[in-house]
Every structure is written in structure tokens, then in C-alpha cells.
């Protein structure tokens, strides 16, 4: 079973986000970069499928050279090879433009299954997976918290508001992953894994290598763009309910405040 994982590099979730001087991007100079956690779950799910069925896991990513480090991390976890689409023309692309580049990269690999996170913790577009599936003309299953395959089909459990759905697709198919660290417990890279990862193949590609032109997926093709960023309104400092109140007094004051002032109970 040949598996592709679409992987994005994102800032660490503990990062403090600041708006850059242009007013429409964030300051990146002091950020720590990680594999988007949901894509890390996809790497874990892919490795488990490979353990069951054999085959290979290829990481497909995009972005500048710093992304190589994240691909190497996935290779150290156990993936076999990587492809990085590194092309300046993708600066300012929208999700659909990126999806076109990724779909072209996937097509060259003709995998049985593509796995990726349901969302990225940076811009949270929640678009990449379904868009790539649409462009490939494949079925997709979204938000899996459990993934299984018999080699000809793939099935997932998917939480929805107020319940759970089990869905299945014929291969080739794309699956996006939901869940959390607790659900997937993605494996750590072992020291031998890290050593081996250095020798695993990692190909850099330009759009032209994928038979694409920047007019199809570059910034000029973007249907939507960010024009400005703003910070959330600062919360005015609240008050600590204490005074000379005992536990009962504090509880009574909190109930009163929530009813009379906040009007939320």
C-alpha cells in the first residue's frame, strides 16, 4: 500500500502571534516551527497502515527550505521519502492554488491513499484535503479519529455534532485526520530513526517540474486574500471575588454577578 501524507509546517501552538509591519502577515522571525499537529497524526496513521499492509509512506509538503526539517522529522518517525514543493510563485497563493500544486505532486506518485490533517493550526483554512480530493476526482473521508483499511477500501470513525458517523471509501481515496494527541499518540523519532532519515530521499520540486504554471496556482490566481490582520479585543481585566468573603460568600457573589451583571445565568 503506497501512502502519501500531506504535511504542513506551522508555528508551535504555544507561540505568541504578533502582526508584522505590513499589517497582513505575522512576525515569523522568532517562531518555533513544528509539523502541524493534525498532519503529525496523519504521519502516525500512515505508519500504522504501512505496518499492517507494507508499502511506502511519502511525505509531500510545500514552503521554503525550513520545511525540510519537518519532513526529516517525519522521515525519522518512519516515513520513506519526501517531496518538497518549494517555489516562490506559491507565496500569496490561496488554498485552492496550494491544493493544485499538491494534487499534481500526488498524481506523480499515484498512491492508494492520501492522508492529511483536517486543519492546520496556523491559518485554519480547513480546505486542503477536500480540495485535493476534488481536484484528483477521488472520494474523501473527513475528520477520522480512527482509520482502517483492508487494502481495497478505507474506513474511518468521524465525530459530528452530537454523535459519530462511520464512513468508508473505495481506494484510491483521501482521508483527513481529526482527534488529538491523546487519540493518536504520534511516535517520537528514535535516534537510529534520525540517523537513517538523513539518508532517505527528499526531492525538491518547482511548479514547472509538476507541469504547472504560476498563473494557475500562484498569487495571481488567488481568488481570496488576506487584506489585514487584527488582534482580538483585549479583555478588560476582571475582578477577583474575595474581599472578606468565605467560600459561601464567594459562591453567592459569583451567582449574583453572573445573573445581575453578566446576565448569563
Amino acid at each position, binding site marked *: 500500500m503506497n501512502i502519501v501524507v500531506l504535511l504542513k509546517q506551522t*508555528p508551535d*501552538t*504555544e*507561540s505568541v*502571534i504578533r502582526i508584522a509591519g505590513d499589517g497582513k502577515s*505575522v512576525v515569523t522571525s522568532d517562531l518555533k516551527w513544528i509539523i502541524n*499537529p*493534525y498532519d503529525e497524526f496523519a504521519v502516525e496513521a500512515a505508519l500504522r497502515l504501512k505496518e499492517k499492509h507494507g508499502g511506502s509512506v511519502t511525505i509531500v509538503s510545500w514552503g521554503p527550505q525550513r520545511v525540510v526539517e519537518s519532513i526529516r522529522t517525519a522521515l525519522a518517525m518512519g516515513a520513506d521519502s519526501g517531496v518538497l514543493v518549494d517555489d516562490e510563485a506559491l507565496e500569496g497563493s490561496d*488554498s*485552492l492554488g496550494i491544493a493544485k500544486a499538491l494534487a499534481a505532486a500526488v498524481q506523480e506518485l499515484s498512491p492508494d491513499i492520501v492522508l492529511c490533517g483536517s486543519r492546520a*493550526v*496556523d*491559518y*485554519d*483554512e*480547513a*480546505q486542503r484535503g*477536500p480540495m485535493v*480530493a*476534488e481536484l484528483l476526482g477521488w472520494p*474523501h473521508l473527513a*475528520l477520522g479519529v480512527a482509520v482502517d483499511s483492508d487494502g481495497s477500501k478505507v*474506513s474511518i470513525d*468521524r465525530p*459530528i*455534532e*452530537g*454523535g*459519530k*458517523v*462511520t*464512513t*468508508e471509501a*473505495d481506494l484510491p481515496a483521501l482521508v483527513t485526520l481529526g482527534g*488529538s*494527541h*491523546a487519540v493518536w499518540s504520534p511516535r517520537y523519532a528514535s535516534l537510529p530513526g534520525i540517523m537513517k532519515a538523513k539518508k532517505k530521499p527528499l526531492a525538491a520540486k518547482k511548479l514547472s517540474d509538476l507541469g504547472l504554471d504560476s498563473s494557475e496556482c500562484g498569487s495571481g490566481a*488567488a*481568488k*481570496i*486574500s*488576506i*487584506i489585514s*490582520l487584527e488582534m*482580538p479585543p483585549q479583555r478588560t*481585566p*476582571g*475582578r*477577583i*471575588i*474575595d474581599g472578606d468573603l468565605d467560600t*459561601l460568600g*464567594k*459562591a453567592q457573589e*459569583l*451567582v449574583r*454577578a*453572573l445573573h445581575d451583571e453578566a446576565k*448569563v*445565568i
Partner: protein
Amino acid sequence: MSKCVCIIAEFRGGNFRRVSFEVASEGRRVADSLGTSLCAIVVGAGIAGKAAELGRYGVDKVYIVDNPALESYLAETYVPAVAEVVEKCDPAVVILPASVDGKDLAARLSARLGAGLAQDCTQVVCENGTVKAKRPIFAGKCFAWCEWAEGALPVVSCRPNVMDCMAPMEEKKAETETVECSIPEARSRVLGLDLDTSGKVELTEAEIIVSGGRGMKGPENYTMIEDLARILGAAVGASRAAVDSGWRPHADQVGQTGKVVNPNLYIAVGISGAIQHLAGMGSSKYIVAINKDSEAPIFSKADYGIVEDLFNFIPVFKDEVEKFKSTCT
């Protein structure tokens, strides 16, 4: 007449979901500022009878695709049907719920139509006939204003619980038109649907959330949180620390890797307030923090803080809430 505004309504278990009415209300506001009409697309099986109800929330016309093959949501079958109707209405903008299924549909639909998509928007404005939308990024640490390129079709999914829902106009019914779409043979299928009928409130749609963190010390202590939540009609959430410890199911996790929530009231119990948690609940209208550590970062976000051992405070608070509830209803 200029191009219409088109909403996509979501239907489940025989009824429209409330977020559909929020989206209709928002659609009405956008249509009014563009000086145009509002149409809706409803896709499913056995839904035709309810469709006209959307008129109560300002929809002028409903396009219905009613087909037994559309019983459950599947991107493969829903997207071609919706795309066909969108092309038929040729709208100025498409608005739909940023629900689990809505976001999935929106992404695939936008790829099919070559449209520009803004997911999970919290505000939509029209300036001189063009649409702009605001959406949270980095789980609410920051907000982005998005604009569409000339000639691009804007697709906007709206975060549940944010857009004001208009008071229903009881007597108003929308005009309806049934559209026959050919539904493609699907290579994916729903094997089972397991709806939770316990009446548990869904986190992303809850008006009140009571969340417990590391300070809860163990899974057995969550009955305290559950009791308080039940009295308040609230949903139960958890911090990543509690979920990683295996105390709570991952579906309860609030934060940047978890659910982003925006209730009227968020009660954080024994949660210190890691950056990634604060991002997930920072847009709650009111925040209460209960923590024995007065230096906990959660207090910087809280409207009301209680510095006390939660094991002392919560039982007493629960009794007081119960007393209050019994006197006011």
C-alpha cells in the same frame, strides 16, 4: 436585478439545525445591503416538506434537492448537487454553516467551482457592493480580514453561535422549487450513524461550558463538573492536560488542538491557562476562572476570578446555583 445571495441550509434528523437559521439571518442582512434577494439550497432526503420554513428567517426562495441517495451527508454526492444549483442561481455570494459537514462541503464545493473560500467567519460586511469577511486564525490569537479578487465567487462559512439569529416571522413562507439533479454513483458511503441521544450539549454550540483541567486531579472528580454543568444546562469541556492524561474524551478538548468555542459563559475549573487553551476559549463572552494559584495565567482572561481550592469551592457553588435556579424558574 442584481445577483442573489445564496445560503446552504443544513438539515439533520428531520429538522433544520439552528445554525441554518443563523446563516439565513446573516444572508438576509447581506442581501439587504446588496439590495438583492435571498435564496437557499436544501439538500437531503425527505426534506421538501420543511423547506418553506426558511421563509421565517428571511429566505425568499428555496431550491430543494430531495433524493433518497442524499439521506446522509457525503461530500461525493452532496457537492455535485449543490454545485449544480449554485450555478443555476448564479449568486453574488454563497453563505453556509461552518459546522463539521458544512466546512467539508464548502472546501470541496469551492474547488469544484473555482471559488474563493473563507471558513469559520465571525463577521461579514458589504462595502460598496463587495463582500469582506473576518475569520479567526491561530485559533483566535489573531483575526484576518479577507477580500475576494475581482470576478471571484465568495464562499463564506459562518461559525455557529456567532451570527445573530433574527426573530422568526411566524407566518412567512418561502417560495420553493424542486431541482432534479443527477447524483453520481458514490465511491464512499456511510456505514453507520450513532447519534448521542443523551441530550448532552455539543461544545461548539453550547451557551455555557464548564471545563476542567489538570487541577481536577483525576477522572473520578469530573462528576463534580458534570453535576454543575447539568444544573446550568452546560456542556463539559477539558484542557489538553486532562485529555492527554486520559481523564476525558478527546471530543471534549478545548484549545488550538481541539475545539474553539465561544459560549456566553466559560467556567474554567482547575485550568492554569496555557496559551493554546486560551486561544480556544478567549472569545467567550464571559469567563470565570476557579484556581487556587492566584498567579495562573487564566486570571488575566477572566471576568470573574475565584482564588480557592476547587474542591472546596465547586460543591458550594453548585448548591448556590441550584438554589438560584429553583427560585428563578
